């Protein structure tokens, strides 16, 4: 295992300490239980936005705490949902009297822990709503299973919902925006390599030099299928087709296109993928109204990418364009 770390068990804590030092103008890090909270909060009358999940997806979620996005984030161990006590403490810290929205990626662990946290918070008199993101088309959806994973849409939902919260909309309205982003968003990912969980010390899976994994999540879980390595054009087609069919996206739609790197893939390759994506969407007369290209929801050092499309309307566009000031995403301020 080749990583810039000290002891595997200290990675998350040390990264948190570094974030606290580096971004003291934006965030504060509280320990035991661990959470990252926006400085100067809670903002009275504003819905508090909390997300969280396992670590190893940086900058998500801690890098998205700040003005116009999250009020707090709970980091778990690597790839492991945080615990209800973290979430409860963070929920209390960001309640400005207008209630708190939990943005939860659809993983059993995250769901269960956030559920317990919400119960505890409600018992303390805080109004809590939860929105679950489940945008991964690689997973077959069914009432009888755990359903789809929450992946790329989460980043976009946090940004857009954060802007709505900043406008002091009601908890219900803010939650509705979040649900709308999720409902209009779809993602699919692929991996060129496995990731290596620090405490495991070796790659989660082995992928031969000429193979790739399609339909991968963000936890080193195996994907939908393994196959021979393909060109960027073919890979993009394989990622976009199921996305387009699923919603479905139609001619004339306007989308936010998000090409995301999984941690070990450099920006130049993400642009090559974006170039193919633009061709495919152009061919179908789907307009890319906005884009985001970079590594925002990662899977440790995995090489690979995911594509997320969200169908946008004027409301979502103006919320996307609203100022945001976090260590991971910033514009307009």
């Amino acid at each position, binding site marked *: 295992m080749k990583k810039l770390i000290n002891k595997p068990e200290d990675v998350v804590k040390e990264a948190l300490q570094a974030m606290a030092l580096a971004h003291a103008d934006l965030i504060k890090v509280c320990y035991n*239980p661990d959470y990252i909270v926006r400085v100067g909060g809670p903002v009275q009358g504003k819905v508090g936005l909390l997300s969280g999940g*396992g670590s190893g997806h940086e900058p998500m979620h801690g890098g998205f705490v700040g003005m116009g996005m999250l009020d707090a984030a709970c980091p*778990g*161990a*690597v*790839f*492991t*949902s*945080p*615990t*209800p*006590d973290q979430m409860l403490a963070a929920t209390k810290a960001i309640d400005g009297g207008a209630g708190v929205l939990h943005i939860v990626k659809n*993983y*059993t*662990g995250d769901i*269960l*822990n956030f*559920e*317990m946290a919400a119960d505890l918070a409600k018992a303390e008199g805080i109004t809590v709503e939860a929105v679950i993101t489940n945008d*991964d088309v*690689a*997973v*077959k959806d*069914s009432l*009888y*299973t*755990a359903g789809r*994973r929450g992946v790329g849409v989460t980043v976009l939902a946090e940004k857009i919902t954060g802007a709505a919260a900043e406008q002091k909309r009601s908890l219900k309205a803010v939650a509705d925006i979040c649900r709308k982003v999720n409902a209009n968003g779809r993602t699919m990912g692929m991996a060129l390599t496995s990731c290596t*969980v620090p*405490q*495991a010390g070796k790659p*989660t*899976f082995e992928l031969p030099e000429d193979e790739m994994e399609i339909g991968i*999540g963000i*936890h*080193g*879980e*195996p994907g*939908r299928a393994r196959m021979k390595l393909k060109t960027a054009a073919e890979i993009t087609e394989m990622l976009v087709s199921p996305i387009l069919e699923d919603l479905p996206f139609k001619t004339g739609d306007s989308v936010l296109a998000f090409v995301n790197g999984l941690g070990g893939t450099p920006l130049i390759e993400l642009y090559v993928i974006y170039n193919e994506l633009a061709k495919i969407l152009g061919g179908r007369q789907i307009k890319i109204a906005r884009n985001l290209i970079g590594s925002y929801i990662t899977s440790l050092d995995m090489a690979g990418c995911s594509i997320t499309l969200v169908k946008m309307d004027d409301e979502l566009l103006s919320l996307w364009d609203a100022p945001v000031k976090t260590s991971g995403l910033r514009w307009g301020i």
Partner: protein
Amino acid sequence: MTVQRDDVIAWIQAFTAAITENKGYLTQLDSDIGDGDHGTNMDRGFQAVSAKVPELADKDIGAILKTVGMTLVSTVGGASGPLYGTFFLQAGSATTGKLELSLADWVAALQAGVDGVIMRGKASPGDKTMIDALTPALQTLKESASKGSGFAVALRASADACEQGMLATIPLVARKGRASYLGERSAGHQDPGATSSHLLLRAAAQVWANQEG
């Protein structure tokens, strides 16, 4: 035979040791169809439980189990944290104030624990989760009890049924938890949570059944 407070603590310690010993194995099972952290998760939780053992000695069994449950909830995370946490919290509620457990008490405790896991995780038998190990363990325990078996015999039968349930997860296609994302590719692998559940009930059989009864 009855199970005393010390026995309960000894069971938790034996399970902790089993988790530490099988940490790599559980993580390997979870790497195959999950995210490769089940062993680490459980070990983190039970190390935290270990640190609490000194506070447990003068508590009743219900309080002991609830402390274990609370500790797991706040240290494990993932799916197994709330699930095992709820298991122990509910088992603790069912044994509130008790200073010893009869076989009937243990049936009630296990029933409450398993119900708690089902309530929280909404898994059904056949979904390829810990429920596939816990349900037959509970069923067999109840049958043994109603047949009038001794505690030790019942515990062993329950652990054996748990093991069978664990093995029976191998061919299943997962419908709950992370393994469900794999669809068909999850078949052919043993469920990590069912495996840790088996270690839990095997530890009870081994620690408690030494006192023959």
